[in-house]
């Protein structure tokens, strides 16, 4: 079976769960004999050498010149254009880039031989539709996040929403990464439930072992936030919870790893709450440092306002770091050995952080059971479910 896959990030150069998910899924699919051509926007930061070393078996990487970042808003895109040397081929707005990506993808579709098209998130939806028109092959859209998640339902970008909605209705099947996301698609995009298949993400269990002494751990325990500092990820709830915890516990530091448009606001907020010395900003971390951060942390908190899946929670558990996850997330549907809170319930969030700091057996049990639970996740499961979707669509003709 040959799949033409449209994506836009691939590790190690990825800024979120999407790249991790595409990597895990394609690796497992290729192991099961699926041949994949993976269309990736070319970024100035990626050189061809790197792409060759990706050990993804049958996955063939095709690139389009752009440095689209999957979670960038149009404004952020403009900003990043200003920072980097600008080759002439780049368009001036994010949407122009999407249009260019779509056009290039059409050409690739013409050249490639495939049985099915599989797209990851809205920026590739146009490309998928074009490819479908060209070769009349079934189209699968994989929804890792919707505009509703990214904006928390406020100030939804109409253009992005339209692309998402149009794509979902044109697709032969939509894959949602959780029931949480399936419900969002039904409620906000008007798709009938039978057109949606839920395929939960997994986690790649290979890990690096860092036997490192972290200086900070000699005096402090670490509570970690790791993700984009945007409204969707709930960093403001994290800071308010920090304030509350610090009123009851000493020797705790709160580390915020990531970057995003809310960063200045969060820094000011921490100062305003009088906890600026207790909240540390680590900035955007590369993959190695992400893993070290999980390892260093005593508690991982994912306070997302709306999280379609939330692979970071699984990754934290993989590094034996007990996790507190928002109930408004896909991962809370499939994980048992973590603590769950409503993102808005700062009292409960801080209460649970304190409980984990104080009650050693709770920390120990979650550490061990969480690790054991995550060990049983494998990308083979979602890969098999995708193959099932492919087969159903192909046999329908």
């Amino acid at each position: 079976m040959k799949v033409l896959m449209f994506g836009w990030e691939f590790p190690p150069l990825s800024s979120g769960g999407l790249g991790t998910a595409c990597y895990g899924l394609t690796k497992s699919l290729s192991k099961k004999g699926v041949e994949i051509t993976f269309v990736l926007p070319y970024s100035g930061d990626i050189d061809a050498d790197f792409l060759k070393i990706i050990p993804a078996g049958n996955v063939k990487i095709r690139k389009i010149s752009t440095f689209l970042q999957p979670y960038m808003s149009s404004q952020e895109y403009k900003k990043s254009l200003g920072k980097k040397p600008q080759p002439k081929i780049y368009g001036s707005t994010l949407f122009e880039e999407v249009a260019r990506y779509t056009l290039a993808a059409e050409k690739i579709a013409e050249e490639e031989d495939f049985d099915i098209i599989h797209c990851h998130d809205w920026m590739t939806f146009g490309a998928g539709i074009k490819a479908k028109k060209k070769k009349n092959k079934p189209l699968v859209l994989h929804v890792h996040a919707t505009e509703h998640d990214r904006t928390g339902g406020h100030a939804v970008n109409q253009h992005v929403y339209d692309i998402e909605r149009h794509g979902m209705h044109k697709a032969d099947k939509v894959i949602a990464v959780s029931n949480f996301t399936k419900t969002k698609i039904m409620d906000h995009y008007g798709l009938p439930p039978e057109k949606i298949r839920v395929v939960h993400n997994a986690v790649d269990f290979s890990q690096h072992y860092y036997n490192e002494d972290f200086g900070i751990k000699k005096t402090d325990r670490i509570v970690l936030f790791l993700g984009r500092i945007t409204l969707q990820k709930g960093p403001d709830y994290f800071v308010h919870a920090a304030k509350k915890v610090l009123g009851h516990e000493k020797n705790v530091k709160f580390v915020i790893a990531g970057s995003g448009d809310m960063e200045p606001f969060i820094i000011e907020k921490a100062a305003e709450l009088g906890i600026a010395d207790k909240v540390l900003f680590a900035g955007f971390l590369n993959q190695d440092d992400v893993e070290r951060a999980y390892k260093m942390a005593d508690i991982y908190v994912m306070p997302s306002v709306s999280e379609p899946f939330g692979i970071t929670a699984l990754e934290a558990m993989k590094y034996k770091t007990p996790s507190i996850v928002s109930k408004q997330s896909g991962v809370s549907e499939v994980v048992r050995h973590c603590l769950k809170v409503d993102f808005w319930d700062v009292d409960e969030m801080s209460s649970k952080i304190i409980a984990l700091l104080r009650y050693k057996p709770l920390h120990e049990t979650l550490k061990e059971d969480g690790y054991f639970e995550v060990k049983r996740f494998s990308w083979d499961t979602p890969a098999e479910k995708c193959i099932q979707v492919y087969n159903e669509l192909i046999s329908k003709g």
Partner: protein
Amino acid sequence: MVSVCFYFQVHQPPRLRKYSVFEIGHHNNYFDERKNEAIIKKVAHKSYLPANRVVLDLINKTDGKFRVAYSMTGIVLEQLERFAPEVIDSFRELVKTGCVEILDETYHHTLSYLYSKEDFREQVLLHNRKIRQMFSFKPKVFRNTELVYNNDIAEFIGKMGYKGILAEGADHILGWRSPNFVYRPKGLNNIKLLLKNYRLSDDIAFRFSEKSWEEFPLTAPKYAQWINKINGNGNVVNLFMDYETFGEHQWEDAVAELDFPHYVSWADIERDLSAWLGNRMQQEAISQVYNLEPHVKLSKNPALLDEWRKLQTSDHFYYMCTKWFNDGDVHKYFNPYDSPYEAFITYMNILNDFRMKANKLGEVKVVE
């Protein structure tokens, strides 16, 4: 003819209110009064009252040949007195027939034997007093919480004057032997041992309504036939889950001695204590509550003592069990908490609050 003993366990725990870490030191109420009231009223009307009517009817129809034993915890009786006193009346009516026996156990449904034999003894006596006051009945048979049993418990209970004790008919204890005889605890002549026939008990308790079971549906003739099969290899079938009985005549002759060197319970495939004490959260919580005994006793404060014992109720630790959680069977048992972790957090927050209270009250008395 084989005798069938039915045994009815009546228990409802004092459920805890979600107690936030920020409440520690405020000494707020620990118990979820509203939920406890709602649940006791519901089970009273859906279960206890109709079941009692059926039992009374059977006793009348069989001219008193049908006999039942009840084990009612002190804390369920307290709750019934407060919220559904008609159930107490209905039990009194049953006891009056003379065909009903009441067993003793720990008043607060605890695992205290394992942690404080002194308090265990007091709890059993407390229960005994409650049953005598309430039903004018003096229990002679003892069943420990969750059927936790070993040789030492049998000896302890024998010394307290009981004539019989119940235990699980666990395969690893019985070996080739049948659970359907009356036995003697190892080395004891003053007390008899009755064993639960867990297969036949579980047929009713767990498999009766399970459609995937090959024997489904279980009809009365089919079940009677299974019991009849025991003829020749047993004298008594003890059905312990919901109904069970101990007519005095059924256990006059003990056939052999049985050795229970290790603790055995009626829970799960393991039939051990792992459902209550299997993980570190459970071990920590239970050892911390018993560590407070000196303070509680020093305070000589009856309210504090009662609260302390209500925190010992075994259900609190059962809710912290992560065993089923691993197997994905979380929905197969009833748990008022979303997860065992929530159960532990609530319990520990309360225990920390209680410790502050106990320290204070315990100290004051020492000074006096």
